[in-house]
């Protein structure tokens, strides 16, 4: 169905989006070609100097990228596994089904920044309940001041906060699956495990891919947790790329350089996301 004025439907949304975004995007690109910082504010032109500096001697940015990769991939993996099993459990009939479904949705509803403040008190090394409980086993882990444990804390908070999102998408997917596939499987005598491997999982593959990609986009922006919980965590052990860009931009006011950082970040993210999407399609859908 085609019609001459079809653009009238599309343009309002598109123009508003582009209208608001056009300046910031162009400005970022222009900014990344200047050396604007607190000492010499102003849009001078230094060509690709920022990018050269970025690719040559800014190891800390690439480390933060690796750390981001590790943190976001682990959290998304955990969220997918936990979210899927929770969804499977509250999908069919279970006591208090609706209560559990609401309960499992609540963490997503809270504001990450505020909840992280609470998590900070929970993981407080001396006054927090976690260490109080662990002290029964003579364990007092320094959650926020040990490199590795800081990462674990960030992962725990992220998993707590965003598993409900994955749970919701996957449960919605499960509820839309055709009933006959499962009837046929039970007639063939398949047990719950075989039903999952040969019926549920393949049918859920497209939905899983969608959910994982959307979650990856969100997870790669881990910022609130790091900012409040560990503000980069002992040294730079929990510093993610967006946090590093934040520090360069709004703490050290190297506007030009942080613009270059953000533009590179955007390009890398788009490329890596499309690659991951392709890989996921090949792996999950066994597309030949």
């Amino acid at each position: 169905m085609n019609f001459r004025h079809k653009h009238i439907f599309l343009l309002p949304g598109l123009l508003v989006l582009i209208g608001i975004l056009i300046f910031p995007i162009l400005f970022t690109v222009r900014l990344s070609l200047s050396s604007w910082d607190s000492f010499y504010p102003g849009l001078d032109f230094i060509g690709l100097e920022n990018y050269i500096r970025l690719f040559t001697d800014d190891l800390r940015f690439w480390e933060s990228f690796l750390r981001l990769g590790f943190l976001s991939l682990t959290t998304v993996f955990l969220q997918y596994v936990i979210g899927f099993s929770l969804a499977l459990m509250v999908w069919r009939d279970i006591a208090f089904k609706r209560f559990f479904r609401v309960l499992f949705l609540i963490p997503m509803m809270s504001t990450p920044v505020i909840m992280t403040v609470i998590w900070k008190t929970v993981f407080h090394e001396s006054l927090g309940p976690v260490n109080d409980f662990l002290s029964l086993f003579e364990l007092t882990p320094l959650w926020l001041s040990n490199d590795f444990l800081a990462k674990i804390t960030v992962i725990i908070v992220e998993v707590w906060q965003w598993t409900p999102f994955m749970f919701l998408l996957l449960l919605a997917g499960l509820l839309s699956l055709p009933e006959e596939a499962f009837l046929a499987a039970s007639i063939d005598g398949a047990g719950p495990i075989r039903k999952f491997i040969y019926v549920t999982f393949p049918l859920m593959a497209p939905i899983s891919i969608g959910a994982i990609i959307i979650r990856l986009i969100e997870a790669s922006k881990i910022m609130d947790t790091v900012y409040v919980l560990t503000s980069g965590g002992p040294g730079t052990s929990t510093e993610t790329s967006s946090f590093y860009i934040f520090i360069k931009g709004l703490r050290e006011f190297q506007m030009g350089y942080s613009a270059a950082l953000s533009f590179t970040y955007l390009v890398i993210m788009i490329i890596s996301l499309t690659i991951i999407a392709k890989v996921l399609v090949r792996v999950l859908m066994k597309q030949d």
Partner: protein
Amino acid sequence: MAKIDLEDIAHSYDPLAREPVYALRKAQLSWRNGGRYAILGPSGCGKTTMLNIMSGIVGPSEGRILFDDVDVTKTKTAERNIAQVFQFPVIYNTMTVGENLAFPLICRNVAKDVIARKVGEVAEALGLEKLLGRRAKSLTADQKQLISLGRGLVRDDVAAILMDEPLTVIDPDLKFRLRRKLKEINEYYNSTLIYVTHDQNEAMTFAEDIVVMDQGSVVQIGNPQELFERPSTTFVGYFIGAPAMNMFEVRVTGKNKVSFGEVEFATDTDLGTIKTANVKLGIRSEFIELSAAKVKNGLQVDIERVDDFGNYQLVSAHNGGQAIKVKVKRETPVPGDKAWLKFPEKRCCVYADEVLV
């Protein structure tokens, strides 16, 4: 394969209500081992409910179901040895055709060599032997239905293979290929096939015995010929055959004679037992003899229209308010306005209170 008996089966989806609505009214049925059955009826007549009761998806609120005289009413679908082919082909997309066929045996951890033999044999019977290596997802709809059928056949403990309108999604010229294969399978494996449909052509061309249902109750069980020539109720006469059986309100005027208006018709049934005034004479439009000239105690009718259906002509005529449809060979001339109809004796069915005498 096994004999299946339904003893006083009935089902209401809300048995505790004051007067529960019965999706399936009390029925007493037994399915012969190796039989080829069809359950035929309009939408909402309870045919799918009966199928689901046999497959165990629905537990009947009353009555028992036995496989070879073993009560399976309470057994779950998985343990109840039946196979089912659904309206939309259901296959395991990630597997090849061979793996699909082997799946039920793998679930029952049958020995590897037995599986290979069984799968090869069934693939041979279904004509899929060349496709075993192919991914199941890439096959045509009727081949996929054969695979779901094959999943039932590889298991030798299957009491019956239930099919819920399996041909609807398949395009017309492939339907014949699948129907022929089903019949071959029925003879080769002596497997009981039960086929649910609302389409009388599919039921009649497929089944040896047809169970006709209406509003939840079993109306008649018989082979296609019986249903066509001696429908046991006026509903079956209406439902089977296109066009429906002509029905005349008549009066009993003799031991085996009924009359419509002043025309009297002889029938070959003893009408002595009829008490009620609600008597009807049913005759198929195929069996009415139409002649242009006046015929002794023939029914005079006015011709409304003549439809050319290629193989035959359908004459729509009426006598007073009573509409009559007559099928006539394509060549026989049909008069423009008046004609006389003769009802062969042994083709007349007399119904007292809607039931065949």
